[in-house]
């Protein structure tokens, strides 16, 4: 019963609309056939007049709507809004008083994704809310070739680094980087930085990469090479380097002639890879760093540093390792062509003095030296070439010296992904006067998602 009633109503409605359409159709045809009729022309004119007034009203209403929207989002009194002589019109709309229908049809925005809206203030607060900035960097590495001394896997998702960064309160911010490797999870860094201390002091508390030289402070994905220099592996703790829990205090020092001088002092628990090991609570390690920087010109600058680290090593509490380093970097990047061309030349030198047991004289100190020298040149927006020379002794046996040469080619599809290839030759010592040659080709795919992190300098 109900169903038939519905059907009946539907039928009624459809006939009604059909009837309504009928006169309109008739009108249109008659207008087209007998346009010469004077009474019709007059009617057309009045209709046009009506259309125009209607269009004017629509424009007025739209303006009012915009004003309301402005007032709502700005939350400021309307007299505070400053307006110059011009009116706001969508791009492409002529300011001349053309017939309104044309203006209406020209209104759609140029692209569907980016709607021409307007907003005053408050944008950042509602976009991010209070979540930290989250980013994830995937680092996929493949290796082919021969290396009998320290072979790496053929293919691996070497690291997935999750970054969580946020401002904690008016006095501090925090940065946490979790590194998911093939073998497990590691807090690569996790520290709070107190930014509002007196006397220009900057305090970091947590786990962090120590300010020991340059390469030790750089995360894997930000390196200009796929691997780390041989000297890092031999003298400064390998891939993780000196990365430990503790305090870091730094301050910019006054310096003449526009030099930037910064001193950093750090105290750590004393556990960092195979460099330092704390067997007692007191076995803390310390790191000191002095950095000098100067702009030689607008596009060229010089970056120098000396560092010192001291801690107890894996033999025992009585055995110390002292590390010294010096680094020098020259950068060139013309400001007008910053995204196309740049050049960087970096040298780092390391000295290691490690106490250890000796078969001959019970206790000995091994003095090993290592260095690397690297250069990179950005050819254009997408391509960068680079090279690196390595030479380093072994921390436990200074008579064993490894050397290496690398050539690196990097391609950037965008700012958020990177494809890199590296040819690596190694002349690696296995015993005094016994070397093994390594010839390898490494390739890497890096991808970044989430928050746009700052570019390391």
């Amino acid at each position, binding site marked *: 019963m109900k169903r038939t009633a519905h059907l009946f109503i539907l039928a009624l409605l459809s006939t009604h609309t059909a009837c309504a359409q009928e006169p309109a159709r008739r009108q249109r045809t008659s207008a087209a056939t007998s346009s010469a009729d004077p009474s019709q022309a007059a009617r057309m004119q009045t209709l046009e007049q009506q259309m125009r007034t209607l269009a004017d009203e629509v424009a007025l209403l739209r303006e009012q709507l915009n004003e309301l929207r402005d007032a709502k989002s700005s939350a400021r009194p309307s007299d*505070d809004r*400053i307006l*110059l002589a*011009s009116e*706001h*019109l969508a*791009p*492409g709309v*002529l*300011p*001349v008083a053309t017939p309104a229908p044309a203006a209406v049809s020209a209104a759609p925005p*140029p692209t569907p994704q980016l*709607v*021409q*809206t*307007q*907003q005053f*203030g408050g*944008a*950042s607060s509602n*976009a991010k809310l209070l979540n930290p900035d989250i980013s994830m960097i995937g680092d996929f590495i493949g290796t082919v070739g021969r290396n009998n001394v320290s072979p790496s896997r053929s293919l691996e998702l070497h690291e997935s680094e999750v970054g969580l960064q946020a*401002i904690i309160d*008016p*006095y501090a*911010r925090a940065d946490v980087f979790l590194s998911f490797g093939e073998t497990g999870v590691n807090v690569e860094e996790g520290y709070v930085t107190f*930014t*509002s*201390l*007196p*006397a*220009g002091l*900057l*305090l970091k508390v947590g786990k962090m990469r120590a300010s020991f030289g340059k390469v030790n402070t750089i995360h894997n994905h930000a390196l200009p090479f796929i691997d780390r220099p041989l000297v890092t592996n031999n003298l400064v703790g390998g891939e993780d380097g000196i990365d430990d829990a503790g305090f870091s205090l730094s301050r*910019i020092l006054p310096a003449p002639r526009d030099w*930037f001088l*910064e001193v*950093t*002092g750090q*105290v750590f628990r004393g556990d960092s890879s195979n460099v330092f090991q704390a067997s007692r609570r*007191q076995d803390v390690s*310390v790191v*000191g*760093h002095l*950095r000098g*920087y100067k702009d030689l010109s*607008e596009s060229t*600058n010089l970056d120098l540093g000396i560092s*010192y680290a001291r801690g107890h090593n894996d033999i025992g509490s009585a055995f110390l390792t002292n590390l010294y380093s010096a680094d020098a970097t020259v950068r060139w990047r013309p*400001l*007008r*062509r*910053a995204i196309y061309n740049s050049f960087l030349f970096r040298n780092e030198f390391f000295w290691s003095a490690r106490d250890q047991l000796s078969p001959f004289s019970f206790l000995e100190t091994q003095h090993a030296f290592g260095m690397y020298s690297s250069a990179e040149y950005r050819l254009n*927006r997408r391509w960068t070439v680079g090279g690196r020379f390595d030479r380093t002794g072994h921390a436990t046996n200074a008579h064993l010296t490894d050397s290496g040469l690398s050539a690196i080619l990097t391609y950037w599809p*965008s*700012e*958020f992904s990177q494809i890199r290839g590296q040819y690596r030759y190694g002349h690696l010592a296995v015993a005094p006067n016994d070397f093994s040659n390594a010839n390898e080709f490494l390739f890497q795919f890096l991808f970044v998602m989430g928050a*746009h992190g*700052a*570019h390391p*300098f």
Partner: protein
Amino acid sequence: MPHTKICNTIATSQLPARLSAIAAAFALLCTLVFPAAAHADTKLRIITATTDLASLAQEVGGDKVDVESIARGYQDPHFVEAKPSFLLKLRKADLLIVVGLELEIGWLPPLITQSGNPKIQVSAPGYLDASRFARILEIPTGQVTRAEGDVHPLGNPHYWLDPENGLRIAKGIEDKLNEMRPGDSTYFAERYASFEQRLKQADERWEADMKPYAGRKIVTYHRSWPNFAEHFHLNVIGYVEPRPGIPPTPQHTVELIAQMKRENVKIVVVEPYFDLKTPNSIARATGGLVVVLMPSVGGEKEITDYFKLFDYDIAKLKQAFDAVH
């Protein structure tokens, strides 16, 4: 070296003594409060992210302020390097004015943190985000992904290229300066009133200059010009970049040339920090012209302030429009 000496003395002393020494030093540092040097007669030190904001701050602040910009006018403001030399300026700043909308996300956050200057930390009284005052365009709606390139989820950050926004920002700066130096508020109010009057006059001139070209279609390299195009009634129909921040690709260039021919577009606007190779080939293929417009004060030597920026760009555009027709 002083720091190595300190480290050595710490390291070689007795262990418990070392720890207590560290604790004592730490406590000392935490309790040390240096007297805040707030002399009313000294100039307010303002650092801005870009030269345009510096020019606006100078207009309002006059000789009561010292203004310096981090980025240069001919530099891509997305890709400024976080050089330590900027820290020397930031650590002494009383006020930091930023463009916001994530324009400086690649370089400014670490500088602010490392400056160790509590006054200019994000949301501190000495941190001013100019985008709060401006009319923002191209705020993406719906899903935002980087398939769209380096999109700015908060809207297009090149908003200073609309004189109305310039005025709004100047007003915001005036309010901030009043708050920081209430004693000079009449001075700032006079400066602002004068700026407003001059800008209104200048805008009438610019509008008149651009009126014959209203509704004309142009192509730009990057999405730097929506506010400019809106104010001066230009119609940006395409971009040399296939997506924001993605370098030109052959396929996109071919499509763009076809579109320009179809719609009879002759002008390719390029920012001074982009390569001219692709724009030039587009201009050759369409019989058009490449115009290098300056998005910022200081892009050319003669562009010394906010007024000259529009003078320069409008003169260049007029010249180009006249040349292609």
